[in-house]
């Protein structure tokens, strides 16, 4: 527990000052506004004010046919866009009862894990910048550019690739992708070791992160916190291991778990996750099966273009899918996956028409933000900034 410094001998008059941090502030990881009650430098109360990048994505989705929703929901949590695509496409596939082919499952896993590494790199770079370790930004973004090159090679766009579609992925990976990915995978553990070397023996970094921002595990569970925050507190809960979705049960990977639950544990858990993701990508590449990359069901999946000139039925399917889109029987589904920040859940309500009646995302950053108050009350302002960095909120997901 931190206490404000008092002058020796005699009572000092103190008052609680309310300070507004943000929404424009170099350290708020997006447009987060914090109204902080400070006594000296100790945080007494904290109220996050959010909504500054609320885009009405969930409402917009009600107006679009199902495949047009995919680019919309991608842009919620704008650093881990493949995860939103997987949550929505997976939810629809379960709602409709569509099985995706094996190759598509493996490809999805490869891209999801690459996106996890990408998200953790962005986190590490920006958090290092917040804490004063400015060179982390440059190193992490060098790696990040390599990942974005891979995305661009496969999908044509660096971010927001709309690569997953209902039924599989939109395109197969091109020639040369595998070699480039293998060289990246070989380099990545070395790089993570270099990041550890940079930060792990830095006295300032260790003093700032060790012992700060501790929230007990039960309180985190009460607050609904999932992801690396929960794992750093000692709870080995990872949806990739507990719910078998896609091809995760076939891969051998560990789930890093911390002990104390302070900011240092969160940092180490995420770095270890980067290495584990690299291993998953490697195993997925080794075991990548041949076959179709998207399901065959013409009711939901576009036929290949080569067929359009020969088969009238394909033309009709293509026309119907592109103009109106497919209709989904009335029903509801909730499907959750493990995104880099925690449990990302997607709720889809279908009412029989070609447009969803309700799309809701249970965003992990939105729920994790409730733990921020517990992390910071009673600590210094500087520790609060450190906790904010280690909390890793992405305001696009918080505000949707």
């Amino acid at each position, binding site marked *: 527990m931190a206490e404000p410094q008092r002058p020796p001998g005699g009572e000092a008059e103190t008052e609680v000052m309310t300070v507004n941090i943000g929404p424009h502030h170099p350290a708020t990881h997006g447009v987060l506004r914090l109204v902080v009650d400070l006594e000296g430098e100790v945080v007494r109360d904290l109220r996050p004010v959010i909504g*500054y990048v609320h885009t009405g*994505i969930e409402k917009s989705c009600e107006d679009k046919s199902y495949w047009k929703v995919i680019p919309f929901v991608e842009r919620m949590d704008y650093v881990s866009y493949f995860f939103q695509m997987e949550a929505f496409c997976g939810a629809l596939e379960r709602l409709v009862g569509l099985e995706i082919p094996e190759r598509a499952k493996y490809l999805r896993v490869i891209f999801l894990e690459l996106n996890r590494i990408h998200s953790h790199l962005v986190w590490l770079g920006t958090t290092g910048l917040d804490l004063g370790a400015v060179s982390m930004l440059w190193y992490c973004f060098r790696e990040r550019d390599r990942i974005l090159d891979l995305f661009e090679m496969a999908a044509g766009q660096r971010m927001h690739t709309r690569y997953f579609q209902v039924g599989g992925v939109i395109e197969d990976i091109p020639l040369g992708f595998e070699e480039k990915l293998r060289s990246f995978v070989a380099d990545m553990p070395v790089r993570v070791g270099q990041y550890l070397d940079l930060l792990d023996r830095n006295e300032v970094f260790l003093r700032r992160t060790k012992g700060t921002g501790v929230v007990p595990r039960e309180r985190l569970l009460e607050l609904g916190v999932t992801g690396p925050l929960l794992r750093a507190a000692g709870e080995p809960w990872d949806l990739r291991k507990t719910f078998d979705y896609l091809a995760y049960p076939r891969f051998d990977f560990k789930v890093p778990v911390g002990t104390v639950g302070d900011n240092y544990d969160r940092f180490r858990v995420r770095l270890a996750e980067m290495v584990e993701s690299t291993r998953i990508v490697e195993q997925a590449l080794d075991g990548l099966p041949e076959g179709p990359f998207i399901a065959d069901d013409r009711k939901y999946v576009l036929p290949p273009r080569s067929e359009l000139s020969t088969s009238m039925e394909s033309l009709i399917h293509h026309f119907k899918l592109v103009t109106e889109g497919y209709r989904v029987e009335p029903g509801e589904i909730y499907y959750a996956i493990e995104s880099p920040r925690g449990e990302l859940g997607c709720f889809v309500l279908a009412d029989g028409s070609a447009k969803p009646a309700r799309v809701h995302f249970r965003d992990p950053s939105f729920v994790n933000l409730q733990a921020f108050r517990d992390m910071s009350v009673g600590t210094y302002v500087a520790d609060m900034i450190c906790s904010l960095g280690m909390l890793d909120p992405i305001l696009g997901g918080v505000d949707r």
Partner: protein
Amino acid sequence: MRARQLRARDMLRGDLEGEELERHVEEKVVMTSFERMLGWARSNSIFPLTFGLACCAIEAPIAVVGSPRYDLARFGAEALRASPRQADMIILSGRVSVKMAPVVRRLYDQMLEPKWAVSMGACSSSGGMFSNYAVVQGADKFMPIDLHIPGCPPRPEAVLYGFNKLQRKIQGNPDQGWRARYGAAGTEEWARGGPRSAPSAEGDEAYLVARELIGA
């Protein structure tokens, strides 16, 4: 090259005279107007404001300014400033929501003249794909924007190209490349209050000619 070196050495020693001195001065000293020099200095030392709203913020300022591959420092703009009072240029990277618009306007007002605003990406230029109750359909609606960069998100090269165009605009020399190539001079769209914001007969005629040229 060697002759020039020798001449420079002579000048420093005070040995150049007459015609040689004049020739040396012609080669070495640039005569220009004060405004142009000021424009050149301003455009090459822009202080951007650290301001990221949404997805475009990951591409720039972070990937463009803070990345070793697409480096904004080579244009002299690496000194990011957190306080609007010390910044020159605000890059609106991301969708401007209804709740954020007054905040952005206040930030823009706090910046000192001369200042430039760059609207990066489709969302801040025109609301992007989000045509709904929560996003301001273009930051133009509440603040003057000097440059729009299209894309969702724009490639870092596009941002750098836009940045170059902004530099030329600051120098008072906006790029007219493609209009000259297609004979479409006179079809520029100017914001209200600009020199050509009122409809003109030449503008409309040139527009029709351009449409014919492209076969529309």
